[in-house]
């Protein structure tokens, strides 16, 4: 046999066998290490490993991180002051950004040419392909404070300073306000209203659900009936009546908090049920009985031993509750009963598209609805992924 032949087939002969055995034992040791890692891993790590396998949920997580970044820095993503209106710039249609022309990478939008219709007195716009408005990244625009602290005027997109004209990525509304910039600002309000309302719901849910499940008996019965009654109410009419009763002269912040509380008044019931169910199941578990026998105080049993055992479930259920709250706020503001201008939320934006006349004139006013759909979709998928991962021992 020649050496050349040997090298051609490395996977035969005694050497190869030895290699295979080594590989196998290596894999076995690795497996044992993995098993050990699983064995000693804390609960949250197990949940995380399982969650990572759900590709779509992880992807939704990234989308949500992006949306949260917009909610944190809406001014940076805006192209114009969201409250700035223009009498001569109403109902400008969507101007798409073109990134390339004959000369290569030169981002620009086509200009628009408008004239007033002599009959309807409305502005009518035509895309003017001869006029190109150059678009710059990190352009200077109106000045604002980043996170309310750092004064700056840098925006992600903007027109070059020396060129006349503006860009309206999603068109403008009835008052000539830039829809894109308003959408960016609405993201902050709509997303946070969902989160705050869910935080209130978690508070009520854990408190009442916990009391119900831990003590049982008459208290349990009363709270359970209360939940049943609240769940048999048609929620939207009740919310409508409650928000309509809010004083008109309240500031935006006051209305905002009132709405989150109103939404959580019915919203806590789902969480309350979940918490109660967990409490009932855990109350009989050995480790809880052991903790009680060891002389732990009631508070310690609840917060040190029981609550960590179902935190993952609470997080999953809460994640699924956020989109419901976002949609409900959108409903209320859309009907004109929730947040009112000058506040900007997705519902307030969609209020501009409330009837057929407005959307027949300016269909782009419906585009903020896409933001609602994407956010709710991402939150639902993320929540489902978390829920599947929440019980790592199943």
């Amino acid at each position: 046999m020649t050496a050349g032949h040997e090298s051609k087939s490395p996977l035969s002969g005694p050497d190869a066998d030895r290699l295979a055995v080594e590989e196998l034992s290596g894999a076995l040791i690795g497996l044992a290490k993995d098993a050990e890692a699983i064995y000693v891993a804390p609960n949250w790590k197990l949940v995380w490993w399982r969650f990572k396998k759900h590709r779509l949920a992880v992807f939704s997580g990234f989308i949500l991180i992006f949306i949260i970044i917009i909610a944190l820095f809406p001014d940076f993503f805006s192209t114009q002051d969201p409250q700035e209106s223009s009498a001569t710039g109403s109902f400008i249609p969507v101007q798409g950004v073109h990134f390339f022309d004959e000369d290569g990478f030169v981002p620009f939008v086509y200009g628009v040419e408008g004239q007033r219709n002599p009959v309807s007195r409305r502005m009518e716009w035509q895309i003017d392909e001869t006029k190109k408005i150059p678009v710059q990244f990190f352009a200077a625009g109106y000045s604002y404070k980043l996170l309310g602290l750092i004064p700056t005027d840098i925006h992600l997109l903007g027109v070059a300073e020396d060129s006349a004209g503006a860009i309206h990525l999603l068109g403008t509304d009835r008052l000539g306000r830039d829809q894109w910039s308003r959408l960016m600002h609405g993201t902050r309000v709509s997303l946070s209203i969902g989160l705050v309302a869910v935080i209130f719901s978690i508070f009520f849910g854990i408190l009442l659900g916990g009391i119900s499940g831990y003590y049982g008996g008459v208290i349990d019965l009363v709270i359970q009936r209360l939940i049943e009654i609240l769940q048999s109410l048609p929620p939207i009419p009740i919310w409508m009546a409650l928000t309509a009763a809010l004083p008109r002269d309240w500031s935006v912040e006051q209305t905002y908090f009132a709405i989150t509380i109103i939404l959580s008044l019915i919203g806590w019931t789902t969480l309350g049920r979940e918490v109660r169910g967990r409490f009932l199941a855990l109350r009989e578990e050995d480790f809880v009985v052991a903790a009680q026998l060891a002389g732990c105080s009631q508070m310690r049993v609840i917060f040190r031993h029981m609550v960590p055992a179902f935190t993952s479930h609470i997080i999953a259920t809460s994640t699924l509750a956020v989109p419901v709250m976002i949609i409900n706020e959108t409903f209320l503001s859309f009907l004109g009963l929730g947040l009112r201008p000058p506040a900007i939320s997705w519902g307030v934006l969609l209020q501009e598209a409330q009837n057929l006349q407005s959307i027949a004139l300016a269909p782009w006013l419906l585009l903020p609805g896409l933001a609602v759909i994407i956010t709710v979709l991402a939150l639902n998928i993320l929540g489902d992924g978390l829920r599947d991962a929440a019980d790592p021992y199943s």
Partner: protein
Amino acid sequence: MLQYIIKRLLLLPFLLFIFSVIAFILIQAPPGDFLTSYMAELSASGSSVDRAQIEALRELYGLDQPMYIQYLKWVGRLLQWDLGVSLDFQRPNTELIGERLLLTVLLGAFTFAFTWIMAIPIGILSATRQYSFFDYFFTVFNYIGVATPTFMTALVLMWLAFKYYGISVTGLFSSEYVDAPWSWGRVVDLLKHMWLPMVILGMDGTARLARVMRANLLDELKKPYMEMARAKGMSEFKLVMKYPVRLAINPLVSTIGWYFPLLFSGSVIVATVMNLPTIGPMLLRSLISQDMFLAGSIILIYMFLAIIGTLISDILLVWLDPRIRMEES
């Protein structure tokens, strides 16, 4: 079974009491009382304010008396089928609601039937063909259906119909039938207009119910009795339809309890966008103009419709599922 139903019916007055309290609180929630707004309304429209008439109204509503007396007076009038007078329309509330109640209930009933007719076959097909194209398609449809606010669906469809067919799909009647008395032609016209709101309103529910049906059926399909029946040579179609489907529908019936409140709740928004002559848009209008007795009455009706839904689901469940019947007796 009769015993069970009677027990449920006995609970009804108690629920009605709680709901009337909630409705009364909502009526009282806005600042100012009914009479002040009423007088403002009268003087704004230029009518003279008769002092004796005002005193009579004050007495009727018990405005100088404590809250619980006002509540009792209100309930007393409710029991005599008197829901008060609308400030906005200057007509009795019973009339205003009566005109629109039939269409509200019809829309609800149609939508409900539509959801079930759609959801059960979709659920069965998704479960028996798990991970097929069909199953994935409806999973995606489900997610999008739940994520889209109903008014968005309504607005987009209205816009498409307007843009491509030049028709306006609002309302429940063509213009010649709006104020016409009931006739065969009017019924046909109603049905022609009803299907679009029905589909829009039912989409979300269909998605949810199909999901529940699929999950229930998947649980059943794994059970040993399926193997047994297959081993005996039963045809697959007959097998699925005869045993697991019947078992999987039972938990679905209990969803009626929460589906009815949501259905009527959602119809408020769709009806407002599509300008349907149901009580939904009237609720919005009365709330905006602070016509609180009308708003309170409408909310009471919604609550009542929701309990009837729950009641139907309870009765159906006990009728369908012998286990519950045995437990109760």
